[in-house]
């Protein structure tokens, strides 16, 4: 469903994404892990069609995101890492606007808006300006806007930021159910516990390159470790700080 072929992006002299190849089939949740500045957000933004690659290609459901952007984007729902939205619109208006961007309108959209607002406990806030929403409420309304048009592919950058435990659980269940019914979700997260329980496959990206990819067992093999948890595997792959380094900082 998502195919990356030699995907590359430079910012001046800095190579943010360096020739990534990846194939994500339909009906699964794919997790993109990596340290800060590894290139996760840039990769997701290229998949969502926001940034244009300097090299390589992105295909969504067989449509090239640069060559056939309309068709590719019609299949997509995107949730960014920072919940910036139109502050002077109400929650319901934002959802109606987003549906309009996908060419949808009328009673079906109104019904869908009601469903989504009810699901996230936002119904009492539907006619309030988004500028009065909390961080978590903004995250919820953005997730709702990504789902308004029943996308085939969901690209989510840091999904749990700002969500309370109940909403976080709801999102997990929603993503699982979404994948089980044929949807493809690609998520980037620093919450390794979430990735471990939710993702069917994982890729670890470091300095713009994929350094490990597969199931958790595949990652253990790559890291040459018997560690049970993803955290140990991840730190081994990405060379986390040593006890000595931590001791020096805390001691100082």
């Amino acid at each position, binding site marked *: 469903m998502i195919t990356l072929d030699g995907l590359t992006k430079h910012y001046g002299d800095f190579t943010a994404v360096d020739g990534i190849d990846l194939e994500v089939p339909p009906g699964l949740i794919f997790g993109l892990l990596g340290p800060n500045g590894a290139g996760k957000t840039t990769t997701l933004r290229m998949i969502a069609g*926001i940034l244009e690659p300097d090299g390589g290609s992105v295909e969504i459901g067989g449509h090239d995101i640069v060559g056939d*952007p*309309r068709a590719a984007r019609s299949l997509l729902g995107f949730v960014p890492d920072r919940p910036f939205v139109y502050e002077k619109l109400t929650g319901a208006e934002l959802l109606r606007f987003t549906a309009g*961007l996908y*060419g949808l309108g009328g009673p079906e959209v109104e019904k869908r808006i009601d469903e989504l607002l009810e699901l996230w406990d936002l119904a009492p806030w539907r006619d309030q*300006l988004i*500028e009065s929403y909390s961080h978590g409420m903004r995250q919820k309304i953005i997730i709702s806007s990504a789902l308004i048009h029943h996308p085939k592919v969901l690209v989510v950058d840091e999904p749990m930021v700002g969500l309370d435990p109940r909403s976080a659980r709801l999102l997990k269940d929603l993503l699982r159910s979404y994948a089980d019914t044929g949807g493809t979700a690609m998520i980037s997260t620093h919450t390794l516990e979430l990735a471990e329980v939710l993702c069917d496959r994982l890729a670890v990206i470091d300095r713009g390159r994929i350094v490990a990819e597969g199931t958790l067992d595949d990652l253990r093999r790559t890291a040459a470790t018997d560690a049970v948890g993803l955290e140990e595997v991840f730190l081994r792959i990405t060379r986390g700080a040593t006890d000595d380094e931590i001791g020096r900082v805390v001691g100082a």
Partner: protein
Amino acid sequence: MSSASGVAREVGVLLRPKLLAVRRRRGSRGRLGRALVLLAVGAAAWPFIYITLVRLLTALRGVEEIGPLLAARLLGLALLLFLGILLLSNLIASLSSFFLARDLPAIRSSPVDWLSVYAARLFETVVSSSWMVVLILIPMVAAYARVYGGGPGFAAIVLASVVPFLLIPAAVGSALTLLLVQVFPARRSRDILAVTGVAAAALLVLVLRALRPERLVNPETYRNLVDFLAVLRGPASPWLPSGWGADAMMGSLLGSLDPFHLVLLWSTAAATFVIGAALHYRLYPRCFTKAQEGNENLMRRHFGWRWLEALLAPFGVQRRELILKDVRMFFRDTTQWSQLIILAVLVVVYVYNMQVLPLATGTGISRYLVTLVVFLNLALTGFVLAAIAARFVFPMPSLEGRTLWLLLSAPVDAGTLLGAKFLIGLVPLTGMALALALATGWILGVPAGLFGLNLLAIVGLGAALTAQALAWGVLYPQFESENAAQIPTSLGGMLFMLGAVVTLGFVTLAQVWPLRGFLLSGLPGREARPPLPEELAFAAGLTLLVCVAGTVIPYRLAVRRWEDIGRWSTDA
């Protein structure tokens, strides 16, 4: 409380990030544009203020006995006006620096003395709200120094008067803001102050126009002016800092300086600072907490958007939602829609100016004057259009900065997005221009053929200037800017204005031929005739050509540039 040196050190620490930000932004593209705009305005305004005042003061000086008195009254009036402006702008600026600035949570959670926070924020408020008044004061006091022979001593007195004069309204303004936030949440207070500020500015424009300042350029009316000023011989605000400042400065110039005025200024500044600090100590923690409350946000569903939705139905769902979104955001942002107040006042003043033009009808000269005014009217209306497009249309692409992710990840092509923005700009802009042209054409009694040509040029200019504002907005976006009012002062905004003036020049020149024929026909020995159809047709064709090219080329450039946004924008 920390010691005085501790407070001074902490104030330095608190102000340092602002100074560094100013220094680092100096080289950026937006800053360069703003600096150039300021330089251009300054280059035009300073000599104008200086020369006008020197001329006026010289004339007043010639009036025996009451000359210096009138000059002092004039200075007092100007300072009184500045005091009002300063108070209002300090009210608005202190709302931002004391309650809405993004670094406040970090500062509030740090172990910095409350007095240091108050002093640093007050300093920021003074700088951000007073710089423009200081810029206007410079040529003013220079003119007084020139006419009354002021030297370095006068400069020292000016400095000693202006510093407390700026500090007093800042301390009073920030204290009033503190009290206002006690009653309303900070964002609501900002909205109230924004509308009050714009309405006050609009009122000021109307009052200044009603005074008919054009009479100042006519020496014959000086007698009347002197009479007018002489009427104001009542108390010259003896209880206000403006009166003390004016008395101190004029006293220095006339050799009768009373130090008591300076003592009054400095002691009042110190007193307002102390009272402001005490209020800050007592109320600020509670007010800051209250300021974090949201806006009044319950939207009334029966507002009437339905009729607009129905009206926009033929444009399709995508365009309709894009247009609705922009219109809603505009009318819900007080800082945006309140600009319409001042716009309406400018239109009224413009039409009023046309009405009071001394065009004696029925004389030979009036024919030439009216035709010349028709010609100028087109240029002036075009310039008004350009200024409005710069204010409202040029920022449109930039205002999408933080929400680009939503537009770019959806299947919306550049043509649809920019087409919607073009329509949003075109309809009100052309509508207003047509209303202006119809009103002024009717007042001036323009011949039918020329009137039609004028209307065609106005509609064409509306389209061309909208497209060009949009194109420059896409070519030079300010995605990081959060203040729509600042965006037009960037380099892109200035380039748009230059391009608009060139377009305006071409369209105005296209009207020359029929106007020329019409004028020449009135010469002695020739039969007066209206412009010939072929002259009008040629001018209309040329106008259409310029306007269509001036619309289509920039619009296409904008679409092409936006299609590539994922490649060039670091904000995407």
